[in-house]
């Protein structure tokens, strides 16, 4: 855990990354804004946004969506059917991962390309905070004191080396493996 960089800082950097990548007016960006549906981001834009956040915080964002990790961890076909649509199990996981996105109501599924549309500004900031929360207790040099440099970089108070965080892909895998078996039973479709 860390209490050096507050959530407000993560949100501010996410907004800045969105403004710079998508060239949108900051006034359009609210915590609940969908980065794809409301701001028009595409897959390459996500790469750019993630790159800006990685540079800002010295972290490594996930390179792959949870769907790919599900297929690697649990077997092909567990997340996507032959038509590239999310399975019931993947929908249940999506609901857990994006609780404010009202995923898949009325028995309908999602195409894999629609998953990015579930990501809100709040969710992206939360992802940054999740990675920052993996701050190790000690630096590799043995010191147990961290400080913030430039407002967004956590560095060792003794040797000034940047903190090493768990990368975003590994966090997704850990989260998936922490879900009880049969995750579909844990979440029901949102109304509407």
């Amino acid at each position, binding site marked *: 855990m860390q209490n050096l960089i507050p959530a407000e800082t993560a949100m501010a950097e996410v907004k800045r990354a969105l403004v710079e990548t998508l060239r949108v007016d900051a006034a359009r960006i609210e915590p609940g804004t969908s980065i794809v549906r409301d701001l028009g981001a*595409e897959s*390459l834009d996500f*790469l*750019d946004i*993630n*790159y800006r956040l*990685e540079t800002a915080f010295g972290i490594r964002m996930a*390179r*792959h969506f949870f769907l*790919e990790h599900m*297929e*690697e961890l649990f077997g*092909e076909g567990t997340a*996507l059917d032959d038509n590239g649509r999310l399975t019931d199990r993947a929908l249940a996981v999506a609901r857990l991962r994006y609780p404010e996105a009202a995923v898949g109501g009325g028995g309908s599924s999602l195409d894999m*390309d629609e998953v990015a549309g579930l990501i809100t500004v709040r969710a992206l900031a939360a992802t940054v905070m999740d990675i920052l929360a993996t701050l190790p207790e000690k630096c590799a040099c043995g010191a147990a004191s961290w400080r913030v440099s430039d407002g967004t970089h956590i560095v060792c108070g003794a040797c000034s080396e940047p903190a090493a965080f768990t990368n975003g892909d590994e966090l997704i895998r850990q989260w998936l493996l922490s879900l009880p078996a049969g995750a579909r039973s844990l979440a029901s479709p949102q109304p509407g």
Partner: protein
Amino acid sequence: MSFEQKVALVTGSSRGIGAAIAEAFARAGADVVVNHRSAAGSSPEKAGRVCERVRALGRRAIAVRADISQGEECRDLVAAAVDGLGRLDFLVLNAARAPFKPYERLLERELHELVQTNFVGNLLLLRAALPWLERTSGSVVFVSSLGSRHYAPSYPLGSMKAAMEVVVRDCAESLGPRHVAVNAVCGGIVRTDSFKTLRQVWEGLESLPDDVLVEPEEIADVVLFLCSPEARAICGQTIIVDRGLGSRLFR
């Protein structure tokens, strides 16, 4: 003069290297078929803008959506090109699609897609275009990358690029008697939107000096050269356009 009244089909030309090639053909006097894969997202709009730029150069342009991994769509693409612009002289196989993952992590579905899009699809399209290219003694140029001959992390596309370079070498022999030229251009690190993907997968890419980066127009220039009469003695070759990056031991 060698491109006037002629028609070029460039796959994956709504952006990046493909768009630069499409526009280069237009500047040289050819009409252009701009191909994109997706019906959704920004690709149709981007393809439309490429067409507008081609038309602004005084040439005809049509945008045709087709997924070249599908044989029927390859045939429809060629049909649309010929129906729309009357002939086919130059086929540029630029479209490519692959995940950035080590081979051992590719899912079975991804392996099939890798081969289908980047190898099978290119051959199906070549086959569909061949009758029209024979009529015009046309040219085929495949757009390859350094991954065909150098290791790059999480770049399984390189294996398909290598395979296609062999196809180029062999088809130049089998199609030469039919007066269809076949060559390839192998790009280095090209400054396109895909650079954003590459810099996240290849650590240290951003520390490469600017002078090794290749502009899309520089790839396009060599593609056009290979389609010109001046390249008539070049047969089945892959021309490397990388500012010397692939030759350097020390960088």
